[in-house]
Structure formats: structure tokens, C-alpha cells
């Protein structure tokens, strides 16, 4: 039985449907990432969960309790805000104590639990520090300690890393993951960065325009994206219009820029025969000298990434494809041919072309 359930949640702001019939379920202790570009409804979904917004329809259930109409406090959810929302006039200890005092905790127990929460985030002894004296990373941990101190049932995090500089992000991400694991709290966090979602989330829900596009483990999303949007949003990829011809003897046959390819190795397709969009990962293509059967184009960019380089090729048909190749295979300005790599490994996905 799921621990936390969102059932068919919808929320409209004026003319825009910010959240459009979203349903999700989390097991106890699971971490779910809400991933999407800005305007996708991920923050609104989180605020519906927190109780700051009331859904127009749908329900939120925790352990069979319907909390849809329950005030934020009574849900016993902890929240870490994007800009932390630490009370600037209270010190670290008073901030962390704030939620405990609401529960009537006082005296010796209060200071013990504040100390425990601060120890949890590695800030033991920071009680009397002013908020203004803390670094961004420390403020973030105080916000976590404050949210966790009252021992909430669910932890909500709104873009927890967006306020940190990039160098700190990866470390903080790891720390948050370890902390959540250690506490074992069911968590939902919002992010617009795929790397963050993959690294921190057990499962990732991809939202777009208020709709849930797909929910699954990072591996699922990468290997079998359910929609063209997910395929393009998750991981590096580029797309090119193709025509699906049908199954062939060695794999799916498609026509692309006047040549025919047979996709031998595990291409996923939800497209019937006819016009389609092929979304392809850089490592699922290879570069070679123009040859019969290859599509051809001009290298416009080369980005060195270490073990390989990413080449941007503008094809003769006008599509722009990213192809992974040996670091110094070709130089910008040169002509090149492209073929699917022999081991595309699920890096090619076909989706029906959008209807005009």
C-alpha cells in the first residue's frame, strides 16, 4: 500500500491549468523528484502537497488519511523552501526550535531535540549563530534541520540546490541524499535539472504543461522514454524527422534524408508506419566518411568532454544532430557521414510525428 498518494490532482490559475490531472504514489521512505521545465506545474504540485494551494479536484492521501482539505500544519509535512525562508531575526537554534515549540515541546527536551537536529545536518553547536553569518550551504542545512526537527511524515523540498553555487551542489546533493536515507523519510522534491533529479530521486516524475509525462526510475526514463518530450528532456539527445517503413529482416526500417536505415539494436518505437520523429542519443550515432547509406552534413561544432568529443552536425536535410566520437576525429567545417552505431544500446527512440 503506498504511503503517500496524489489522486487526480488539478489546479487552475485563471485561464491556465497549472496542474492537469496528476496522479502519483510513493512508498514509505521513497524519494521522488518532480522534474520539469519552468511552467510545468512541478512547484504547484509541491504546493498542493504542502497545503499552500487547494486543488480544484483530486485528493492527497497519507497512510489512508485524506489530507486534501487539511491545513498545512496538520498534515505534518516538513518543507524546505527554495530561498530557505529562515527567520532572519531568530538565531539558528530558535529557527530549529520554532516547529518544536508549536508542538508544545519545551525545556530540556527542546534543547536536546534542537541539538539532535543540528547534529543530523552536521551543524552541532551552531545554536547561537545568526542566520546572516552562515554560508549558503549552512543556511540550507539549517533549513533542513528546521524542517526535520518536528519529525514530519513527509519532507518536501522546493528546488533545494538552486541557491547554491555549482561547485557546492554536487557535494550538498550527496549530503542531502545521505541524510534523507538515514532519517528514512518519504520525500518529494522539485527540480528543473535532470542530473539532480537522477542523482537524488529514487524515481522521477517528469511534468510538462501541468501533465505528468512519465514516472519511473532514472534508468527507465533514459532507456524507455514514454514520450518525445521525456526523451529529449532527459539526457542529451537530438531529433530528426524520419519515415517509419516497417519491420525489416534485421530490425526496424526507416527512411531518413533519402537513405534507408535498419535499426538493429533495441530501438524503441511507439510510431506506426508513416512520418515520425527520431530522438537519438549522441552515443547511438557514429561518424564516418560519407558513404552509401549514411546521411551527410557539415561539422559545425566540436566540444571536448574528456574521453570523447561531442560533434554537432548540420545535415544536408537541415537537421542538427549531436554525435559522440573520438576526441579529434574531425574538425569543424569538414563534411562527414553519419550512421547508427553498431551498438546503439537503446539510444534511439521513434515517436509519431505531431499532427499538424
Amino acid at each position, binding site marked *: 500500500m503506498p504511503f503517500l498518494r496524489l489522486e487526480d490532482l488539478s489546479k487552475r490559475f485563471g485561464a491556465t491549468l497549472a496542474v492537469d490531472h496528476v496522479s502519483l504514489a510513493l512508498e514509505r521512505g521513497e524519494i521522488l523528484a518532480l522534474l520539469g521545465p519552468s511552467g510545468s506545474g512541478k512547484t504547484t504540485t509541491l504546493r498542493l502537497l504542502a497545503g499552500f494551494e487547494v486543488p480544484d479536484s483530486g485528493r492527497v492521501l497519507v497512510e489512508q488519511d485524506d489530507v486534501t482539505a487539511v491545513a*498545512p500544519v496538520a498534515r505534518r509535512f516538513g518543507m524546505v523552501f527554495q530561498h530557505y525562508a529562515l527567520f532572519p531575526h531568530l538565531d539558528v537554534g530558535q529557527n530549529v526550535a520554532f516547529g518544536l515549540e508549536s508542538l508544545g515541546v519545551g525545556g530540556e527536551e527542546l534543547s536536546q531535540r534542537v541539538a539532535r537536529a543540528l547534529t543530523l545536518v552536521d551543524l552541532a553547536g551552531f545554536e547561537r549563530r545568526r542566520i546572516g553569518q552562515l554560508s549558503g550551504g549552512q543556511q540550507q542545512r539549517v533549513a533542513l534541520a528546521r524542517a526535520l526537527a518536528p519529525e514530519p511524515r513527509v519532507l518536501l523540498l522546493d528546488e533545494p540546490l538552486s541557491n547554491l553555487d555549482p561547485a557546492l551542489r554536487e557535494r550538498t546533493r550527496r549530503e542531502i541524499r545521505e541524510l534523507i536515507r538515514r532519517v528514512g523519510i518519504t520525500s518529494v522534491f522539485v527540480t528543473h535539472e535532470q542530473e539532480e533529479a537522477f542523482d537524488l530521486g529514487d524515481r522521477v516524475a517528469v511534468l510538462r504543461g501541468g501533465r505528468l509525462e512519465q514516472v519511473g526510475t532514472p534508468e527507465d526514463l533514459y532507456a524507455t522514454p514514454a514520450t518525445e518530450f521525456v526523451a529529449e528532456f532527459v539526457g542529451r539527445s537530438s531529433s530528426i524527422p524520419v519515415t517509419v517503413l516497417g519491420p525489416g529482416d534485421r530490425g526496424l526500417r526507416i527512411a531518413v534524408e533519402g537513405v534507408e536505415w535498419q535499426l538493429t539494436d533495441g530501438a524503441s518505437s511507439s510510431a506506426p508506419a508513416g512520418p515520425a520523429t527520431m530522438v537519438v542519443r549522441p552515443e547511438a550515432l557514429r561518424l564516418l566518411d560519407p558513404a552509401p547509406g549514411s546521411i551527410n552534413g557539415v561539422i559545425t561544432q566540436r566540444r571536448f568532454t574528456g574521453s570523447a568529443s561531442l560533434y554537432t552536425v548540420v545535415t544536408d536535410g537541415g537537421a542538427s544532430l549531436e554525435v559522440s566520437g573520438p576526441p579529434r576525429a574531425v574538425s569543424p567545417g569538414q563534411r562527414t557521414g553519419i550512421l547508427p552505431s553498431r551498438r546503439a544500446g537503446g539510444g534511439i527512440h521513434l515517436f509519431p510525428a505531431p499532427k499538424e
Partner: protein
Amino acid sequence: MKRDTRANVAAGLLLLFLAWLVLYPLLLVLIEGFRGPDGWTFDFVRQFFRRRNEAQALWGSLWISVATVVLAGGIGVPLAFLFWRYDFPGRRTLGGLVALPAVLPPLVGVIAFLFLYGESGFTSLLVQWLFGLDEPPWRLQGAAAILLVHAYSMYVYFYLFTRAGLSSLDASVFEAAASLGAGRGRTLRRVVLPLLYPSLGGGALLTFMTALASFSAPYIFGGGFRVMPTQIVATRLNGDDQLAMVETASLTLLALLALWLLRGVRSPNEQGGGRKGVPPALVPIRSRTARMLVAVLGWGLALVLLLPHLTLLLVSFVPVGTWTTEPFPPAYTWRNYLTLIQDPVRARPLLNSLWLATAATAVAVAVALLAGILTVRSRVRTGGAIQSLLTLPWAVPGTVFAIALATAFSVHAPLAGRFILVGTLWILPLAYLVRDLPLTGRAVLAGLRGLDPSLDEAAATLGAGWWRTLRRVTLPLLRPALVAGASLAFVTAFGDFVTSIMLYTYDTRPISLEILSSLRQSDVGVAAAYGVVLMAVSALVFAVGAEQGSTG
């Protein structure tokens, strides 16, 4: 949801209260102007348009206000530029003195000018004595006298608005202009001034509205020269109540028209969002002659700014009836101050003003806080109306409100929301409250808008209820705004003259009225002593407000 319903009910009640206190009296005045003994009539409107002095008073109000804007801008703007751009000896000290006129309540400023530049004031007696004249060399009367007082007391608005506007400009703006080859003149014309328009507009609007509503200066110095606020009081003293209402309506329309014409301008702190630029480095004045010139001008200016305060202080030590024709008073005494404390009749106005201003301020802060929380936080549907009613008294001259309240609350009709309050204890605090609402309202609204709403939400997720969130989070963070609004409100109510003169009773007579009556009895010493008290309390409250505002 339950929370929303409760907020909406509270907002409805607040709206009703504000409409009753602010809008209703104004509407009654408008209506009463059209009511004769036998029903509806246009007689009074016709009278208003037929009498020449009405048009003259209206015109007088208008041109005095425009001229005040020009004068105050002419002094305040260059001064702001000087302090912003140049370094010269005494810059810091002078910078502190420049805002001095702000601590003089209107009536106190006027009597200080009277003692200083009036026919029997220091300067004219000094000139008379130096040149052996029989007559005073000038008379401090009419439009020129009014403009002199206005320029002195209102250039501060332009100065402060321009300073605020300039301080929000970043040095990079000038560096960019310079790198693009713009000279100093072109940078000023094409870059600085356009960026300053909102500030200058804000200063102009505030100056215009203050000048239009100005009562003390025309009342004391006007003589035969009438502006609308003094005309209204005169008409009312003649017993032509209905005509006074038509006059009141005309002044209201003029004020609202001005507000509408200048509606596009916003004060810089409203649009700037508090971001502060890195100011360009000060330019030291190097040339010897220029330094001398600036120093002389600067200290001359400081003297001019300080003279009214010093005069007041000096005169407050003059025993009654001892100072007649000498350039300086021949005798000095502490007695005036002792009288204020020891004589119960004389001490009464001081106590009155204290409790009246305190009560009005406390209620104004509470109403503003409630309005702020309902409109900014709960975002109730009636929010726009509540905020408009809260700021309306700012646009309407004090005289108008005095007449409006006197009209609304001189009739016993509880069902129509009218009670006899005129002549009771209650009318003055109510009048002060109306005048204070826009001041506290502005401060609280701006303060609340500046608070991150997620702080409230954070408190809510941590289990704090409405009351605890208010007490532990909102109020402490809002303290600078509350203190700033409250100090402004207190000073305004404490020094009020314009509404008091029409609504006071003997038991509630405030300091300003006592100053006036002491002056009439030629007891200049006591009048000045009261003035010094007003000045000192205002300065103290402002200082506390500034201190709290910066550290809170």
C-alpha cells in the same frame, strides 16, 4: 475554505469601517453643498461661482502650489546633486542639517519665521536698528511670505527624493555613458535625469499636495491673500456652512485632479525594490576659490536652515511683555518652561496632545496592520478598495477632512452611521486617526510587500498558528516599518493644527491651539516654549524612528 471566509469577513468589516470614517464624511459634504432649507438647491454652487473671491482663493491655491514646487525643486534638487557628487569641507555636518526643517511642525515653523523675519522679528528689528529706520523695513505678509515658508519647509521633499533616486543609480551607468563618449552634460541630460524622473515626480507630487493643503502659513501670513483652506475656515466662521461645503468640495476636486494628473509618478522606493547602486566616487573640489566659495555658501545655508530653530529657542526664554523694540530681547527666564509644567491650565494642552496623538497612532498602526495582512497576505477580494481608502486621506487636504468630520458627526442619526461627536472628546482623535492612516498604511504595506511570503508559509509548516506567526515572525520583521510609520503618524498628530483648529474643544485643546492663543495674548515666550516642546518631541521621535528603521 474556512481561513478564506474568515479573512473575507474581516476585510468586509474593515472596509465598512474605513468607508464610514474616510469616504462617508466626504460624500456628506458633497451632498450638503446641494441642500438648502427647502430641499435640493444649486443656490450655494451659484453663489460660489458668482463671488469673485472664491475664484481668487482657488487660483491662489493653485499658483502658490505650483510656485512652491518650482522653488522647492530649485533648492532641493541642486542641493541633492551637490551632496551626492562633491566632497567639500563640512559635507557630513551639513548633510545632517539639511533635513532640519522636517522637525518643525507646520505651525511651529510659521511662528519661528514670524519671530525671525516678521515686522517685530529679529532681522527686521536688526535692520531697523542698524539703519536707524522708523518703520520696519518689510512686512512678512501675503503670497511672498507664504512662499518663503513653503520653500523652507518643503525643499526637503525634493532633496530627499532626489537623494534616494541618485543613490539607486549605479556607478556602472556613468562608466557606460563615459565609455560611449558622453560628456558630463550629455550624461546628465540623457542618462541621469531620465532615470531620476520618478524621483523628481514623486517629490513634485508630495510638494504640490502639501502646499495645496498648507494652512498654517496662509492663516498667519496671508492677510488679505486667501487660499482655499483659509477661505473655507473664514466662510465657516461667517456661518455660511453650505457655502463652506461647496468650497470644500472644490478644493477636494482640485486635489484629486492634481493626483490624477500626476498618477504616473511613483516614489523611487516603490519601484526600486530596495536595490542600491554603488555610488560613483565623490569628486573633491580642488580649486582654492571654489572650496572657499562652497564653504561660505554651505555654512551660510546651514545658518539659514538653523535660524528658525535657534530663534524659537531664544524666544522661549523671553519673559512676557519685556521684548518690544530692541533687536535682541533684554531679559531671559526659565519661567515659561516652568509654567508649562506647573500651571495645570498650561500643562493641559501638552497632556492632551500626548494622549490624542498616542491614541490616534496606536489605532492607525493597528488598522494599517490589519489592512496590510488582509490585503497583502490573504489577498482578499476587497483589497484594492481597502488600500485606496487607506491612502485617500493623503490626497485630501486636512481642512477638507476637518469640515467633513464636523459635518458628518454633528447629527444624531445612528441608523445613518452619524453620531454627535463634535464637541466631545472623540472627534479630535478620530480626525488625527484619519490623517494618520495613509502614513501608517504606506509604511506597513511597503514593509509587508518586502517580506518573503515563504516566511509565513515556513511558520505554517512548522505548526505556528495565525497568532504565533504574527507575533513571532511577521511583527518582529515588520518592526522597522511599524516604527517608521508610527513615528511619522505620531509627529503629524502631535503637531496638528489644521484639523484641530476646527474641531477642538476646550478640554481637548492641543498644543498648536495653545500656541495660537498665547500668540494672540502677545505671550511670545510661552508660545515659543510650546513650539520648542513640539520641535523637540518631533525630533526625538524621528530620531528613534530612524534608529529603529536602520537597525531593526
